[in-house]
């Protein structure tokens, strides 16, 4: 790159607001249940990381760093 000026994508980028959410996916109702209903950013669906493992109770733990970045 021929860097003649100083603004780069990295220099103006910033981390999205994130909220950590841990829930359990319930196969019967086909919805994810949370210990308490989170409000902040929960309705954003862009996810940073998601892991899912089947648990003994028949559900699947879903543990995500959910960023609050709507796909605007």
């Amino acid at each position, binding site marked *: 790159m021929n860097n003649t*000026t100083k603004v780069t994508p990295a220099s103006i*980028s*910033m981390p999205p607001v994130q909220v950590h959410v841990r829930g359990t*996916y319930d196969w019967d*109702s086909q919805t994810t249940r949370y210990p308490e209903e989170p409000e*902040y950013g*929960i309705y954003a669906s862009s996810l940073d990381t998601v892991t899912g493992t089947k648990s003994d109770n*028949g559900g699947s733990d879903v543990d995500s760093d959910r960023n609050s970045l709507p*796909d605007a």
Partner: protein
Amino acid sequence: MDDTLTRDSPFTDVRGNSVSDAPTDLLIVTNSTDATVDLLFKHGLPNRLHVFRFNFDLFEAYDVACEPENFELVDPIGRRCTLATTRKAYLRKPLPASNLSAEAAYLQAEQSYALRSILNMLWRCEKLVLVEPDAERTRLDKFRQLSVASRYFRVPRGMFANRPIKHWTDANLTVVKSLSGAYLGDNVVFTTLINPEELTTGYPWFLQQYVSAPFDLTSVFVRGRVFSYRLDRTFLKETPDWRASREENTYARGTWVPIDTSTSLDARIQGYMRDLQLHYGRLDFLVDHAGDVVFCEVNPNGQFGWLDPTDATGLISTIAREIAPDTEVAPLPYSPFGVPTAASGAT
């Protein structure tokens, strides 16, 4: 079409019926952490019996089989879905995971390919409703969106360049945006005010004229119906992008206020979406100080749950009715498979 794959299927559905007569009816393709789909269940979708939710992030929990003319999905409790048992299919957000090992990345790529094949099968058979897969990455890129939008809305000048721009109007009032929305490490390039002459040569930049606006406006188009919401931007001190704000109430309920755009905007949205051949989209606008609406973009699979999580405006229940297995099937108006559809226009 034969509903039996060549392998044995030892499953029965949740009602104890044999697999051959178990209609699933609605297939939702998404992730298990998609709260928007949870809201659809909460506000109108029938639970369990006629809906199959396929969560891409839990791919390995399902039995998945796919042949050229059929597929079979079976979840851990025996709920089953095939091409023949699917009356409608709705694509939400089967987002891939990141930061994977080499083997996990390979597995995910193969799973993504299989899922794309299943979606194409459903699309070809006119079972996909509302959301067109990858429309913004294929035929409706931002430049096409802006070009068609200029027929109906005021559109700020936008361009891509990989060198400093010296002949740009209002040089000090320009924003850069990400075309792809890709992550840069753990960061995101939000809409940012810049001086275009200070951009580093060689890097890819999407520039757009800055619009001074006291309000954001977003309108959700659901096959002919429009739901609009407005955000007061006066709290945005340091950024033109509300998503970059660190104000804690930005996403809180009630921040986006429903507004009636039936006389001022909806007819133009109808025309625009008809031209794009979309049955669903979330259109983002700015409202300037004179009250004029300025088009930003349309997201053909834009999320909507956070706008009205209690369904006070009927947005979520309207989408639930559209995709419900017992209502009219309105196939996607655009098809890449050369098969004309009956629903070429919004109703």
